[in-house]
């Protein structure tokens, strides 16, 4: 099994979830990022990889968003927003965190019993400029 993730929309119910290319964040706003665990080894041809359900109910998912500044690295514990779908996870970002967010890569670590799987999702988080006039 090779862990991957797919970003989902900010849906109110499990039946309204849609796949997104990336989560787009505006600095200073609070947001919740939803994503689905997928198994990249099960991908058939050009079809999207199927979802992945952790075996253990006590499985945990940690999030890391890298930043060049050690003080702005974001580490989060994701939660399961929908009890009926164990492949869907979410984490929230505070106003301060979206203000200082760095990398476009989202690193997800799934600890499922003794198994640890890590996924690096490229360009999963796209953040608008903090200051649209200059940098």
């Amino acid at each position, binding site marked *: 099994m090779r862990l991957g993730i797919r970003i989902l929309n900010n849906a109110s119910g499990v039946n309204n979830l849609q796949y997104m290319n990336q989560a787009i964040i505006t600095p200073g706003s609070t947001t919740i990022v939803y994503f689905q665990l997928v198994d990249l080894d099960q991908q058939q041809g050009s079809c999207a990889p199927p979802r992945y359900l952790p075996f253990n109910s006590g499985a945990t998912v940690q999030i890391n968003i890298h930043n060049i500044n050690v003080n702005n690295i974001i580490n989060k514990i994701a939660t399961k927003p929908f009890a009926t779908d164990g492949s869907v996870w979410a984490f929230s970002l505070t106003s301060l965190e979206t203000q200082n*967010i*760095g990398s476009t890569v989202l690193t997800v670590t799934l600890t499922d019993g003794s198994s640890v799987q890590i996924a690096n999702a490229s360009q999963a988080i*796209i953040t608008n400029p903090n200051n*649209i006039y200059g*940098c």
Partner: protein
Amino acid sequence: MADYKSTKPQTTHNYPQKATRGGVSGFERVQPFITPERMRNEFLFGIPLKSFLTGQVMSDETLKSLIARAAAQVELKCKIDIFPVQRLIRQDFDYTKYSQGFNQMNLGWAPLKSLEEVAIRLVNSTVYYDGQSNQNDPEGELIYAFPLSWVNLAYGYKGVLNFTPIQTVYGGTGMAGGINSSGGGMGPGGAATLMTAMSRTRLFPSFWSIKATFGFDENAIPSPLNDLIGYTAALEVLSLLGITNWATSKSISIDAASQSVSGPGPQIFALRITQLEEKKKDLEDLIKKRFTANGIFMSHF
């Protein structure tokens, strides 16, 4: 990840160059990183992202990968950092640069976002003898860190630094006035000895150790750079798609009825490719000219 407890940020914007903080108005000059949606709408408008041979559709994951690769190419080709990168650069001590250029240091990358350290470090970085480490600082033991307030960042947008005040306090017997080591290591007396040694030496390889961050603010890419990334990625996409349109003519006939169709074949996107290549070349030249120090050269011969 890097520690920014000690840092000297650029006083002005890196883009628009030299604009004061908050002194910019009007339209959006910086943008977020390009997404597959923007790629399709702005750089590949109206082009079906589908193989003419197999019907295979180019996925958004593929577009993301091409965008990331295009950004890496732009960074290499233009010698510019798009997202911030902190580097540890060793520079030779060059007497000509020291005495005539206010210790000019051409760092080789641009634009400078912030300066974290200008120091003299030993070369005794971590070494393993029979599997045992000598436990030294991996960057080399710190002898002396210069106060960052002495380093002139005015030419940082081209990746060039100077020590402006040093010339005014250096005397034949060493430093006049107080120098405080900002990062530990040798104290004022030690620095004076080093400065004296410098006046007797023509060239000292890898003498300066500079830690600096280059690039633009996180997630704020100047729109011309985003355009260059888009053009580069679009060229790759069109090259992949064009070759799948192999047939220049197709004809079919049944009994007395026949139909034939002619087309450009693999040359289907030739005009667009030519246009994109021209735009890419112009932008590359402009970016290299504006952000790098190719025209500045000073050395001891």
